[in-house]
């Protein structure tokens, strides 16, 4: 089972494939460092351009960007108290106070080392867990896959935090979009308005680019960034080999990695939740919790290790079952699909060099992070914040238009993308979460198709959905996710009263 893993290694070191990871990591740090631009956005803009590339070059770029962006988000979080990506919110808590004390350079070094450790742990988790899981997935027939999809939808609505009603509405919009196109069983047209272009349904990449790339770009053009606080001479950076011995956060790193890996595997949650949980746990068990929030380096370590530890692990359900755990994993799945790589057990059988090569790329991406982000360029990356934002925004819009046009070579898709962009912008302004839309599109399609297949297998008897242990476990998990938060709240409320 693991011999394929070693077999895939030489391909990863083909210079084009390796260069892709290096470029990806650097690009990821840049993207992450720009407030408003996220890994999801960068990868969705990139996917249409990867058609013509070798699969490992394309996947290497994506793995690199994902790892890089998760660290890059820490740069403005530390220097400006503006999280570069949503996952870097918890990094501001102690990172910014450190920068004010003139320890910004050390904070960034802690961030990059922790990010790297989280990424490495996550890549190992992917390598160890995905191959055996891919064997078990044969147990997942239509009724089990239906329940996995329902569980995924339930958890993204209820675990994302904030307002479950808004999450539900977002998810419903996504599920509605999944209904557009040919009916999966009979092939009848649904909501296509006679457009031949709509028969195949809405291409996930078009939705992603519109929804995830357009609103942040509009924000980018709208709001000037105050960069007064950035003064790289005040960072107080010392060489990383001198800084390393000061980092003794083994417990925090271990806990944060495990938390991040676990949250990455769960569908719905993602980097920001992992970072918050890791930060809270580290603070709770700390000897001096009162210093946290005033510039405790361990706080930066806790947040940054966890938001990188969910990167590769989010691909475990994506590669084995075709069900992405996070929005970024969903985009990457889109990247696999454009290369004709259908996730599931057959992927591991038919394309072992690609799928295991991809895992190695995650590992090397995480290792490169500390080399590129840590030693070479802590100071130069800090200067990224001074890039002219209108120029950047315009370049991204042009890339989006070209990319979406090139998917099928038709303007129809471009208009569709702009339409989704407008919807995404309005939803963003009204504080509707966007990840449920994407997972609604993917999981809604899964749920419908597999429910109908399962019912055909059961010849119309709904009991076919409850006939085996795997299905029942998934039903129980779904109920727990839906009811759990409410019960917990009631319990806390009743304790408060008493």
């Amino acid at each position, binding site marked *: 089972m693991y011999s394929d893993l070693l077999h895939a290694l030489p391909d990863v070191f083909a210079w084009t494939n390796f260069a892709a990871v290096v470029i990806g990591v650097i690009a990821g740090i840049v993207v992450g460092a720009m407030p408003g631009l996220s890994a999801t956005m960068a990868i969705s803009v990139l996917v249409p351009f990867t*058609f013509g590339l070798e699969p490992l070059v394309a996947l290497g770029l994506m793995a690199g960007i994902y790892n890089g962006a998760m660290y890059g988000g820490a740069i403005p979080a530390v220097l400006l108290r503006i999280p570069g990506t949503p996952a870097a919110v918890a990094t501001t808590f102690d990172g910014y106070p450190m920068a004010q004390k003139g320890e910004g350079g050390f904070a960034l070094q802690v961030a990059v080392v922790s990010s790297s450790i989280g990424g490495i742990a996550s890549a190992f988790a992917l390598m160890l867990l995905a191959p055996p899981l891919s064997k078990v997935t*044969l*147990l*997942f*027939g*239509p009724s089990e896959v239906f329940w996995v999809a329902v569980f995924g939808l339930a958890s993204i609505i209820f675990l994302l935090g904030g307002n479950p009603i808004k999450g539900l509405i977002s998810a419903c919009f996504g599920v509605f979009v999944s209904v557009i196109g*040919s*009916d*999966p*069983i*009979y*092939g*009848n*047209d649904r909501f296509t308005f006679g457009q*031949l*272009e709509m*028969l*195949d349904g809405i291409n996930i990449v078009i939705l992603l680019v519109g929804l995830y790339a357009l609103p942040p770009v509009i924000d980018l053009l709208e709001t000037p960034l105050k960069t007064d606080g950035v003064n790289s001479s005040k960072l107080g950076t010392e060489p990383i080999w001198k800084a390393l011995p000061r980092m003794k956060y083994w417990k925090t790193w271990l806990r944060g990695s495990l938390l991040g890996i676990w949250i990455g595997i769960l569908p719905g949650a993602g980097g920001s939740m992992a970072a918050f949980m890791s930060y809270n746990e580290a603070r709770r068990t700390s000897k001096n919790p009162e210093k946290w929030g005033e510039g405790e380096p361990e706080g930066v370590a806790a947040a940054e290790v966890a938001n990188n530890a969910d990167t590769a692990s989010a691909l475990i359900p994506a590669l084995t079952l075709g069900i992405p755990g996070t929005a970024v994993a969903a985009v990457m799945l889109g990247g696999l699909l454009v*290369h*004709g790589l*259908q996730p*599931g*057990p*057959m992927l591991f059988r038919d394309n072992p060099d690609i799928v295991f090569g991809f895992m190695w790329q995650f590992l090397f991406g995480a290792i490169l992070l500390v080399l590129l982000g840590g030693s070479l360029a802590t100071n130069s990356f800090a200067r990224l914040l001074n890039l002219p934002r209108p120029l950047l925004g315009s370049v991204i819009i042009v890339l989006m238009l070209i990319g979406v046009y090139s998917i*099928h*070579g038709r303007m129809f898709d471009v208009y569709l993308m702009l339409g989704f962009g407008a919807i995404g912008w309005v939803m963003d302004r009204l504080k509707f979460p966007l990840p449920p839309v994407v997972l609604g599109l993917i999981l809604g399609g899964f749920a419908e*198709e597999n429910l109908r*297949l399962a019912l*055909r*297998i059961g*010849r119309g008897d709904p009991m076919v959905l409850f006939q085996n242990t795997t299905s029942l476990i998934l039903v129980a998990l779904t109920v727990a996710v839906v009811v759990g938060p409410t019960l917990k709240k009631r319990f806390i409320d009743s304790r408060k009263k008493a």
Partner: protein
Amino acid sequence: MLNIFKKTAIAGAMILSAGAALAEYPEKPIQVIVGYSAGGGTDVMARTAAPFIEKYLGDGASLVVKNMPGASGQIGVTEAANADPDGYTLGTFNLPGMMARTIDREAEYDRDSFTYLANVVNDPNVIVTSKASGLDTLDKLLEEAKANPLAITVGMSSLGGDDHFALIKLEKATDTEFTIVPFKGSAPARTALLGGHVAMGILNISEVAEFQDQLNVLGVATNERSQFAPDLPTFKEQGLDLVNGSMRGFIAPAGLPEDVQAKLIEAFSQLSDDQEFLDAMAATANPVEVVTGEEFKQLTSDLYDLANGVWQTTPWN
């Protein structure tokens, strides 16, 4: 007087230009529209065949493959049907899918929209059962199907495709009934078979060749044993008259000039004797069966009649 002169001049010009076309076709690159994305079975066939067609057309002919994916190939084939019939736009053609689409939805083409050049690939259907089902011979399968009508679930890649027609033929020939479970494509159907979630499957030989140890392959729907997997028995050997498959070939818009049509068909017909071509197709899991011109048209017509007959009695959507 002037009028007659004009007419003669026009007629003369037409004769000249026709002569020029005969002498020079192809004088510019020929576009081949593939209705699926790059890397799929039909695309691989088109790209594998292109250099050989160039060779047989001679005179530095060049074929350019253009992918127009979408709507199960319908977008691309519609584009090819509506192109100028000048020999510079060809298209790929899939059977029975392209004909079934004219029956089960509104299509902007019909069987008379094309000049039939050549069918190149015939990927025969196979019947497989999951190891868990215990139905490891054709006799056991048919016995069970007769004893319990509709009890056997059959995974396949879609309704109205070659798999579906193979099952209809089987049901008619053996007076049995099965429960159809149409997955979205053959890969998920095969995965469900490996996991034992459906008992039986109808797939194509290229899709099961590597899975012979994990599935029971009960037979192949060909007249003679497939060169692709010579160790697998046909249904005919087992006393069941069942021949069906997924076919892929090339068409041009209807109304192609006769000389151009003849030249193209001549080029395509040479494929079947070209060992280099056959090897290239075998390497990409494409069983070759070249059928050209009138025969190809007749084949399409027969399949249309079969599909239409089925549709009249038991529409699939």
